[in-house]
């Protein structure tokens, strides 16, 4: 069984999946309308879509801010993470000193830093972007280090025997090799950066989708809250899809 056929049967939407999704939404709609619960507490999907439509301007105003911060935090984590990871992996001393430290820091829940960051950098964009960066950063560093170091030493010998220059070795051997694990980390980090921004916005926000969500649900406007959640889900999916697409374009030989 090839990997491609496995992917299509699990990852992609197929007939049973579409049927299940439609049934789920239908059941939700029927339950929400049938039960005598308040629409504010348990809104039917149609109300969620309706809130999305009615409040679209307000939503977009806050959404752009959230989108912008996630992208900036993510890109910073990729650039700094890859450069730092590459540097660490090239030096035995740095690797022995810093690799265990990054693994330890990776395990710690960075989300807990949100209130401290707000205290230090204010409740604005800076603290949120920094949290997004911090959460997304460690997988990038660790995967870059592991990617560079996992290169088979015989490849290095082979390149030397072909009299590769240092630049050629980097460009033709090391970088393509490490890119597979760098892209794997990017797919993790891009989702994490959304989480970072949303946590910071929820903990101490005056703007952004996280803040809007807190505001809407404190007023028990669940239709609007779920609409915001839907936007966040679509945004997370779009970012992930973009990175996956870039991955397929760049390291087309992989898989």
């Amino acid at each position: 069984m090839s990997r491609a056929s496995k992917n299509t049967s699990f990852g992609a939407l197929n007939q049973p999946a579409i049927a299940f999704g439609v049934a789920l939404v239908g059941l939700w709609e029927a339950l929400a309308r049938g039960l005598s619960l308040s629409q504010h507490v348990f809104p039917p999907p149609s109300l969620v879509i309706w809130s999305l439509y009615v409040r679209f301007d307000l939503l977009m105003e806050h959404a752009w801010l959230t989108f912008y911060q996630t992208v900036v935090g993510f890109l910073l984590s990729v650039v700094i993470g890859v450069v730092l990871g590459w540097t660490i992996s090239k030096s035995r001393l740095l690797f022995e000193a810093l690799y265990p430290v990054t693994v330890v820091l990776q395990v710690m829940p960075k989300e807990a830093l949100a209130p401290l960051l707000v205290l230090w950098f204010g409740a604005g964009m800076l603290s949120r972007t920094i949290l997004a960066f911090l959460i997304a950063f460690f997988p990038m560093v660790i995967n870059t280090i592991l990617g560079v170091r996992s290169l088979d030493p015989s490849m290095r010998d082979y390149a030397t025997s072909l009299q590769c220059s240092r630049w050629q070795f980097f460009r033709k051997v090391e970088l393509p090799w490490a890119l597979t694990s760098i892209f794997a980390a990017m797919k993790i980090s891009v989702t994490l950066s959304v989480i970072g921004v949303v946590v910071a916005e929820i903990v101490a926000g005056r703007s952004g989708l996280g803040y809007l969500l807190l505001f809407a649900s404190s007023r028990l406007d669940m239709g609007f809250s779920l609409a915001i959640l839907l936007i966040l889900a679509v945004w997370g999916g779009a970012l992930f899809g973009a990175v996956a697409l870039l991955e397929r374009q760049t390291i087309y030989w992989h898989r």
Partner: protein
Amino acid sequence: MRPRVPWRPCADVWRRSGAVLMPVAVFLLIGAAWSFLTNAFEVSPLLLPGPVAVLHTMIEERQVLVEAAVSTMSEILLATVIAIVAGFATAVVIGTSRLVRRAVFPYILATQVLPKVALAPILIAWFGIGMESRLVLAFLISYFPMVINTLAGLLGTSEGVLRYAHSLAASEWQILIKVRLPAATPSIVGGIKITAGVAVIGIVVGEFVASDRGLGKVIIDSSASLDTSLTVAATLIIGVLGLLLLGALEVVEKRIVYWQPGR
């Protein structure tokens, strides 16, 4: 492949101790730099107190901190256990039927890109400010990785081994218990580690938003009253708790999947 080196115990001990000492030295260096910088630049203790002040607060406020830590940790463990059991059961059920798998699995995968911490305000509206909201949040965050990892393990059994089991006339049940589950163990244990790690995040974020107790509440309250050394102390304790939990699981993993080299 590591090249064979002659046995030199002293050199080996030196290398091994280096692997432990270096990171410790780095952490001590960070602490020293923190202490030095806050002193040298006379950083206001409202902004960032030095490590000594933080330690002092930890001792002074130990009762509050220990009580909060116990509450946080027990909620983390509870959420983790529920997510592990439910996630494992779901994966076994989904794993048995190809139709169910095709229908449900795309959605389980899709939950991975949803920032589930955003559910916190919604869950509070539904379940109120209290442990229920936090447990549900932590459960929702940690359940799906468990399902995905367990399922990947169960379905990842090599075709050859399965064919061999069939040739021995093993029943589906026997194949599940004796072939698929053991083969899936590394992936399942990996899933448990992810589950525990994200459960910490779920509970802490839950405590930030639904603050009625726990370290998250200590952090929110102390940062609101600019008692920064307590904020830093509680944040550090959360970090250490997360580390201890994952470290303990790492040790368990080495015991359970001892046959996996390099794990």
